[in-house]
């Protein structure tokens, strides 16, 4: 229902309007719903608005889990 994409904030102007890099291009992103967002943060963007700031530590944890899952499977195969 709610296609949204992760993107990294590359710039925030004085009015609070953000710019984010997404698949090699720059997109405008409204940051009104994530006042805590800073340049360099990854956010989830839906319909032009960032709705969530991503957690780098949790993202690393997810990556670690999947590397383990893959390794376990390769050993088992």
């Amino acid at each position, binding site marked *: 229902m*709610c296609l949204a994409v992760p993107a990294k904030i590359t710039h925030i102007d004085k009015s609070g309007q953000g710019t984010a890099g997404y698949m090699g291009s720059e997109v405008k992103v*409204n940051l009104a719903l*994530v*006042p805590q967002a800073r340049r360099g943060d990854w956010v989830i963007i839906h*319909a032009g608005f960032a709705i969530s700031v*991503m957690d780098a530590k949790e993202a690393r944890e997810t*990556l670690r889990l999947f590397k383990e899952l893959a390794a376990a*499977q390769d050993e088992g195969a």
Partner: protein
Amino acid sequence: MKELRNPAALRSLLSDIEEKSKKIGRAPRLMEVCGTHTMALFKSGLTPLLAEAGVEMVSGPGCPVCITPNAIHEAAIAIVTGTEGVTLATFGDMTRVPTRKGSLQTAVPARDSRMRIVYSPEEALNEARRDPARKVVFYGAGFETTIPAIAYTVRQAAAEGLRNYSVLPALWLVPPALRAILEAGEAAVDGFIYPGHVSAVIGAEPYEFVAREFGVPGAIAGFEPGDILLAIRSVLEQAVEGKPRVALEYSRAIGREGNPVARALMDEVLEPFDASWRGLGVIPASGLRFRKEFAAFGAGPRFGLKESGDDRDLAGCRCGEVLRGVVRPEGCRLFGTKCLPDSPLGPCMVSYEGACLIHFKYGGERRARS
């Protein structure tokens, strides 16, 4: 996040899932509430693999274009055909929903009126700012993910005194719909995969009643194949242990508390009411409408639209039953015969989140077998 598509990792999760589903003893039936999850499951080819692992996935009501009843789509058509100097802005797939009055795409706008497809409601607000003589209406359908963005445009319009901006709302809340599905019982759901981006706004708490009152497990999932399998594994684990809860398997993107800023904005501008959904009927406190202070921004009163009690789907369309999870798209006689992506007879075949379109595009193997 290519690791979340790593075939070895996915195989490992699938074998965990198979093991757990065997322990349950019968094929568990899980509802993916969100249409974007349906799309991810089909596109990645996971649906048949999950069936082999003993898990049946059923699509739920998570397609805002689909659950918006035809009466509202017809109201949008009435605005753009009946008033001069209107821009009716909306998301792309809203324009193709077939009704007894045609679709927004086939409608002939009144003089100097036009349709405009936008990606963000802010684009509609910007047009209203640029051209004060033009009446700009945003036809906004969405769940909690989208609602804050729409509420933002209305609060801005009020603050700036923009009298030429209005919104035709079709705003839906997920948790009351889940309660309706559970109370009806006909979908026989053993667990829920909760929508990740709705949850980014509402958090985990609004689903707690599902575990507490109905004993049904669930997990909030992201949209990579690995995310969805992690959530399915968690749901089955809860079922095996007999400890239903709301697990969060998308913690890199959202927290259990959701987004309080977005919720406060929704609450400032909108209030719940008993809304009528396609297929599910009237559900208590399941829709949002403008609070009194913002009522002037509602397109209904502004364009003198009357509430029409006459709400009908096109003959034979079973989209409503598909949305309740009681009929699979393949169970509809029109599916793939008279109802096709190029000539849809209902919104489930229109929206990129509609179960019928997704099954038609990506479910070839299953169709051939059935």
